[in-house]
């Protein structure tokens, strides 16, 4: 592929890590502006708060209200440098490990505190 359309092929695309595990979608793409350099695509952001900003102020406020009600304070957002991109195709492969990603916090938390406490949860394939 010669040129890649950022909004069409990258934004909202499925992300996978080195082991092809699904690790969310491209929720936000950031450009880096540096004095003396042209702007460049710099960062992929994964996380609910980043996503909410795309919808609008009312949605950010609604989300914040719900989080206060549920007592959740920490935001678990991953910011990944664009040079970690290994391949852009049906999915976008990143040179990262899901275990190190802040945005996979909920997956890990549920696995440890809920899913694995129920019999029959462990293993790869059923």
């Amino acid at each position, binding site marked *: 592929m010669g040129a890649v359309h950022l909004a069409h092929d990258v934004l909202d695309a499925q992300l996978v890590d080195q082991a092809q595990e*699904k690790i*969310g*979608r491209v929720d936000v793409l950031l450009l880096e502006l540096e004095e003396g350099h042209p702007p460049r695509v710099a960062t992929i952001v994964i996380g609910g708060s980043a996503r909410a900003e795309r919808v609008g102020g009312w949605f950010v406020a609604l989300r914040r209200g719900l989080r206060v009600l549920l007592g959740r304070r920490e935001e678990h957002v991953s910011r990944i440098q664009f040079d970690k991109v290994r391949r852009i195709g049906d999915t976008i492969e990143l040179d990262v490990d899901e275990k190190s990603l802040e945005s996979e916090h909920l997956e890990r938390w*549920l696995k440890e505190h809920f899913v694995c406490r129920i019999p*029959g949860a462990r293993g790869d394939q*059923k």
Partner: protein
Amino acid sequence: MKKWSEVALGVITSIGGFLEVGSIATSTQGGAEFGYRLAWVLVLGTLSLALLMEMTGRLAAVSKRTYVDLLRERFGYRFFLLPLVAVFLVSFLVLASEIGGVSIALQMATGINFAWWAIPVALLGWVLLWRGTFGIVEKGTALLGLVALVFAVGALKLHPAWPAVGHGMLPSLPSDNRARYWYLAVSILGASISPYLYLFYSAGALEDGWTMEHLGVNRVTAGLGNVFGGGLAVAALIAAALVLAPREIKVDRYEQIAMVLASPLGRAGFVLFLATLCITCFGSTLEIVLALAYLLAQGFGWSWSENLKPEKDARFATVYTVLILLAAVPIAIGANPLTLTNVSMVATAASLPVTVIPLLALMNDGDILMKHVNGWASNVALVVIALLSVALLVAALPLQLLGG
């Protein structure tokens, strides 16, 4: 050879999975109150569903992505929230209704009030989801669901006047009771064309590892399977027209629907009706819960597959666990299953535009489908379904108030 067994299994799955709480309730209500005159609505709903399933299956087989994946990727997060929220809410209502259907069948079989059955039914469903593979959940329940063929036997034994049935397949306007007629028409369409069906189907294409080579299997499964399945719904309508209409019984409880089969087939008909209601609603319960988990997992890019152990897709497994138990709550606290069913069918009909209209763009996107984009005939059909879905959205609330 393998292809043919896949085709056969696919068709059987569609037939066994077609009838569920909504189609059983709305088809028999239609037959009881308007004879054969609403049969054309079942034909319209079945054909629309077959086309939508063929298209979403083709999308998945060619692009290796599900319909939900493409909704998010091609329309962006902001738009995606609309189908996400709409499909989530209406499917949750339908899910609760299906649990209600199983519970009512168990009440009729045991005499123990349906409210007591909701939580045990949800727990049993959850165990199957937790331990079972996609094949077990989909094919297993659909094969057992073939017991629904008893509706065809019942209808044939009642010796319907076929010219009159044929006449009912053509649209007609009622002379009186118009609000009720159109209300039931909308309910029947909502029961036939449920978004969870094609969401589940397109995710299933990936679970089963479909490729371009499955395009033929897809066409036959979606086409033949739904036509035969729709035939069973027509059979239920015919039987209700011949058993309930002459006695002027309007269906307001599931017990009355049992008469539709008990009258031509006696005690066996009654037992088989209970088995049909119980098994088909249970099968749909599993399909809807999975469809909802697929919707969230694919929309947000989480790991998902019913063939993986739960620890490999913790968010996906948590979603179906929580939802199946939550959906049992309305029935467990005594909500009327039939009322819930009717409301959810109308809500489903109203939700259709947000999942049907985007298909118009996706099915003509050469980047996704290459040479497998829609031809003109499919596009004309899809535009008609899209217009129909908008009409349903506009008409749903007024008809719920006037005819519900």
